[in-house]
Structures are given as structure tokens and as C-alpha cells.
């Protein structure tokens, strides 16, 4: 059933690493083979297995979860879903089957020849006793703004976790956490599975590892689709862990490994004018929809934001936090079709991005972090608001 890797010992591998097969399967296969070689160097004699996670149907591989396509090709695991994040459960199952101490889900990025990054990423779980490790890459000021503007402040305010990049597709999971995740039926609901929220909600030991600059820039995404996909995952966890996050009061520090280095930025800051125009058009045409979830006070505050000149556009942090909380409540009570609701947030999000770009374009990396810290504090200060609205969602008159 299980084909042993060349480096896996008779007792089974200690580490199982899955690489997501993206649009370029050939490059992903090469990445897996390179990774297998790097694992052998980084963990000599310990046994490590690198597999390629494919999105094919799992039924086709019934009885043979792991297979080698041909000589020279890496072992392949059928993830059973189109979404990369959904590949985590079969990977954890494989790790449990082989009694591995840790399993890691990685993107097929070009990696450095030096294998120290692998040890830095896996050692906290293998030897440090941590249950979940999330890699954090050095990003530019306007890189990963969806995480910076929504996911990081929201997860920090809700769960008290200071994981700086909680949205990444890459994660290292211990056998203990893997077992818990597989037992949790509610975790498997939906296509995108997010391991970080269940881990921080259940007091598993979480760490982040700074790995330097990201080897390859993230690809451009369709913003409404990305917002809908990401926020539906986050809001679903928010719904499932409501009994936990309502009791969390203050954020706790997260153990960090590696040195946080700022990314080099050569390009000039983007022009905020198109973003402000998107916000203005959204206000003109979508405010009727927003009024279903946003209270009049928030709508009035949005109306009063000056749009001209675009370089002066700012969205107050407290208002932005309340908007996100109101959309979370709207998603929970199904104020309208959930996908439509989250997509309708796009102009508001682009408005926030415009304000953020205006504010951070001239700041240094530490100053940007200080700015993000102020945003997080605003989310934390508005937490009583979301608790109240979550408990009594109908207690406002639009």
C-alpha cells in the first residue's frame, strides 16, 4: 500500500512533507525531488518522505493512497479536492499511517540550496515540542494586504494569537495536533481547511519561523474571489470557535524563530486613485446592500470619508474593524447569500487598501509594523462590539 521512499527507514519516516501540485505539475514534481534530496541532507538517517499532492479524486486511489507514477518521479498522494488547503487531511492521514512525528504542507517554491531553512521550519515540531509552525516570509509594505488588513488583526483580536502571517498555505503540524484535527468533523466542513484557528483556539503550542524573503512573489489574484474564499474560511472558524474567542481577552506572544528581515522594495508605491475610485463606485451602487449588514452609524462614517484628493484618503481603524465585524455577523446570520455578501465587501476593502497605501508608502519597515499594530489594537478595542452583535445580531435598526 505504501511505497517506501529511498530515504525512509524501515520504521517509517519521521517527517512527511507534502508539496502542492499547482498549475505546473512538472515544476512541482521537480520541487518534490529537490525537496527529498534536501530532506536527506537536513535529516540524515532520520527518515523523511516528500510527496506530491495532486488534486485528483481520492476514490481512484482507494487502497493505494500513495503511489509512484514512474521511475524517477516523486511519490504522489491524491488530495481529493481542487483546493490546495484541502490537501492537509490526506497528508496528516499519511503521516499517521507512517507514524511520522511531523508533517508539513509546502508550496512548490524554488528553495535555497542551503537546507538550513528546512531544519529551521521543522525543528520546532521535531525537537521543540511545538504543535504547529507557520512560516513567515519577509514581505513588502503592500504585500499580503488581505492578511495585514483583515486576517491578522481579526485572528489576533479573536484568538489572541500574534501569528503575523496566519493566512499562508504552508504549515507544519505535529502528530498530536494532526490526530486532533482528524477527529474534528467540523474542521472538514467546506473545501478550504485552515489549521491555524483550531490550533490556537485549543491551546496547542504554536510558533512562527521567519524564513527571509519569499522565494517567488504571490500571483495576482481576483480580489472579490480571494476575499470570498479567505473570509468564508475565517468566518467559518469564527462561528465554530465562538465559545472560545468570546473568552479571550488579550493577545499572547507567539514564539518566533529566525530573524525578521524587511524585504527590499525597489518599486514606487502604487497609485491610490483607482482604489479610491473603486470605493466611491461601491458606495454609489452597493450601499443599499451594505445597509443590510452595516448599522447607520457605520454607513454615515463611510459617507463622510473625503474621497478627494485620493492621496488623502483614510479609513479610520475603528470603523474598518466594525465593518469587518458586521460582515462576520451578516455572514453568520446569512443576511444574504454568503458569497454575494463577501464579494460585496470588495470596494470597502479596496478603500481600506487605498488608505493603507497612503499611510505606509513613505514609512520604514518598523514604522509599517507600528501602523499595523495600531490597527490590531483597534480590532481588539472593538471586540466587545462584535461579541454583543454576535450574541444579539438583530439588535440594531438599519
Amino acid at each position, binding site marked *: 500500500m505504501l511505497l517506501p521512499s529511498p530515504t525512509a527507514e524501515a520504521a517509517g519516516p519521521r517527517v512527511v512533507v507534502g508539496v502542492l501540485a499547482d498549475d505546473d505539475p512538472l515544476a512541482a514534481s521537480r520541487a518534490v525531488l529537490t525537496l527529498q534530496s534536501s530532506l536527506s541532507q537536513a535529516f540524515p538517517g532520520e527518515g523523511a518522505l516528500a510527496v506530491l499532492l495532486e488534486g485528483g479524486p481520492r476514490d481512484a486511489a482507494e487502497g493505494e493512497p500513495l503511489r509512484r507514477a514512474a521511475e524517477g518521479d516523486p511519490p504522489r498522494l491524491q488530495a481529493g479536492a481542487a483546493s490546495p488547503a484541502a490537501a492537509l487531511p490526506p497528508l496528516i492521514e499519511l503521516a499517521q499511517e507512517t507514524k511520522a512525528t511531523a508533517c508539513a504542507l509546502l508550496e512548490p517554491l524554488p528553495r535555497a540550496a542551503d537546507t538550513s531553512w528546512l531544519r529551521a521550519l521543522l525543528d520546532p515540531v521535531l525537537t521543540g515540542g511545538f504543535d504547529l509552525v507557520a512560516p513567515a516570509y519577509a514581505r513588502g509594505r*503592500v504585500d499580503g494586504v488581505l492578511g495585514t488588513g483583515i486576517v491578522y488583526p481579526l485572528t489576533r483580536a479573536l484568538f489572541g494569537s500574534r501569528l503575523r502571517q496566519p493566512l499562508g498555505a504552508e504549515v507544519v503540524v505535529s502528530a498530536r495536533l494532526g490526530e486532533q484535527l482528524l477527529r474534528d468533523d467540523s474542521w472538514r466542513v467546506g473545501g478550504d481547511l485552515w489549521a491555524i484557528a483550531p490550533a490556537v483556539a485549543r491551546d496547542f503550542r504554536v510558533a512562527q519561523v521567519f524564513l527571509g524573503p519569499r522565494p517567488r512573489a504571490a500571483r*495576482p489574484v481576483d*480580489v472579490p474571489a480571494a476575499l470570498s474564499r479567505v473570509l468564508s474560511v475565517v468566518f467559518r472558524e469564527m462561528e465554530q470557535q465562538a465559545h472560545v474567542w468570546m473568552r479571550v481577552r488579550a493577545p499572547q506572544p507567539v514564539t518566533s524563530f529566525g530573524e525578521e528581515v524587511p524585504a527590499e522594495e525597489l518599486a514606487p508605491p502604487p497609485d491610490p486613485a483607482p482604489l479610491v475610485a473603486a470605493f466611491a463606485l461601491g458606495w454609489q451602487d*452597493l450601499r443599499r*446592500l451594505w*445597509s443590510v449588514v452595516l448599522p447607520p452609524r457605520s454607513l454615515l462614517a463611510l459617507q463622510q470619508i473625503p474621497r478627494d484628493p485620493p492621496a488623502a484618503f483614510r479609513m479610520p481603524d475603528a470603523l474598518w474593524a466594525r465593518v469587518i465585524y458586521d460582515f462576520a455577523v451578516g455572514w453568520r446570520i446569512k443576511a*444574504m447569500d454568503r458569497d454575494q455578501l463577501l464579494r*460585496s465587501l*470588495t470596494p470597502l476593502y479596496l478603500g481600506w487598501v487605498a488608505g493603507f*497605501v497612503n499611510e505606509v508608502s513613505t514609512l520604514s519597515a518598523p514604522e509599517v509594523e507600528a501602523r499595523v499594530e495600531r490597527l490590531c489594537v483597534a480590532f481588539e478595542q472593538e471586540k466587545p462590539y462584535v461579541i454583543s452583535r454576535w450574541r444579539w445580531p438583530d439588535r440594531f435598526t438599519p
Partner: protein
Amino acid sequence: MWTQVGIVLTEAFDRIASALVADLPALVAMFLVLAGALLLAAVVRALLYRGLSRVGFDRLAREWGMTTGRSLAPRREPSLLVARGAFWFVVATGVAVALDVLGATTTTAMGQTILAFLPRLLVSALILLVGVGAARFLERSVLIGAVNRQIQAAHYLALAVKWLVLVLAAAMALEHVGVAGGLASLTVGIVLGGVMLAAALAVGLGARDAVARALDRRLPPGEAPPAANSSHDQQRIQHL
């Protein structure tokens, strides 16, 4: 003469009395049917309201856009509206049966006509209801999609889609109920044709440049004109 008048009156009253005696059971039966229908309608309304509330019909209706979701005031709940509709449907059926029970030629014919008409009316109401839901859902989809693509006329596009679906649903409902079926189809045809002609004229006369720009953007990179700075700026922002 007065004797004759007395006889005529007596005979008339006798005839009325005998007619009443003959029709009284039917009248009593009619009133019983009406009372039973009212009772049944009240029971159906209560059961339907509770059942629909339990299965989350109001939430589904809110998701589909049939209600705004702004208020949970009982009078606006879609489940109550459906329950009320069912109440009046049962009452109307009861009236039709009562007229039939009366036994008179005219009332029987009227009752049977109503009975034959009610099912079609019910299906038509359902068609209209689904049409309204679909129209509002599609209106929102088009509105959000168009705004997110920076289309300035998003509101008009959404309105056009909404009314197109509404007119189509109304025509289907009218055709099913048998009211001006041919006219309804003809109306839809005219409206659709008019919309297409108007759209073609609008694009041809007023939006040539916009279409040309849109086509240019879809050309292969080598043939495309230089992209605007704003597009470069948008792409420089990494959202994930």
C-alpha cells in the same frame, strides 16, 4: 277580492316555505362547508407558519433576496405571508365547494369553475414567487459583479436583469393561469427584442471606444497597447 289576494299570498308563502324546506339542507350544508373551510384554513395557516419557521424558510427567503433582512418584525416574515396565502387558498376552495354544495345550477357551475381555476392560480403564484426570488438574486449578483469590475452603469445593468427576469416570470405565470397567454408571450418577445435592439444601438453609437478598449485588453500581450499605470499599480499590490 281580498279573499283572492289572501289565497295568492298563502300559496306564495307556501311555495317559499316548501322551497326553503327543500333547500334548507343544502344551505345548512353550505354554511357547514364554509365554517369547516374557515377552520381548516386557520389550522393550515398555523401549521404552515410554524413548519416554515422551523425549517428556516425566512432565512432562505432572506438569502434569496425576497426580503431585505433588515427587520424581523412578524408582519414582514415570508413564512407568515405564505401561511396567509395558504389560508386564503383554502377559504377560496371552501367557497367553491360551498357553492357547489348549494346545488343550484348557476352556483354549481360557478363553484366548479373556481375549483378548476384554483390549482392553476396556485402554480402561477409559485412561478411568480420563484421568479421574484430569482430576479432579486440575479440583480444582486450582476450589481456586485459589475461594481467589482468597475463598470459605471452597474446599477442599470442590474435593473435590466431584474426586470427581464420579472417580466419573464410574470409572462409564464399569466400564460399558465390562462389569462392573455398569447399576449404575454408577445409582450416578452417585444420587450426582449427591444432590449437587445437598444443594447446594440447603445453599444454601436455610444460605447464604441469602451468596447475597443475592452477588446484591446483581451488581445495577446504583443498586440495590446501599453497598459495604464493604474493597472500596473493594481497588480503591484499583492493581496495574498
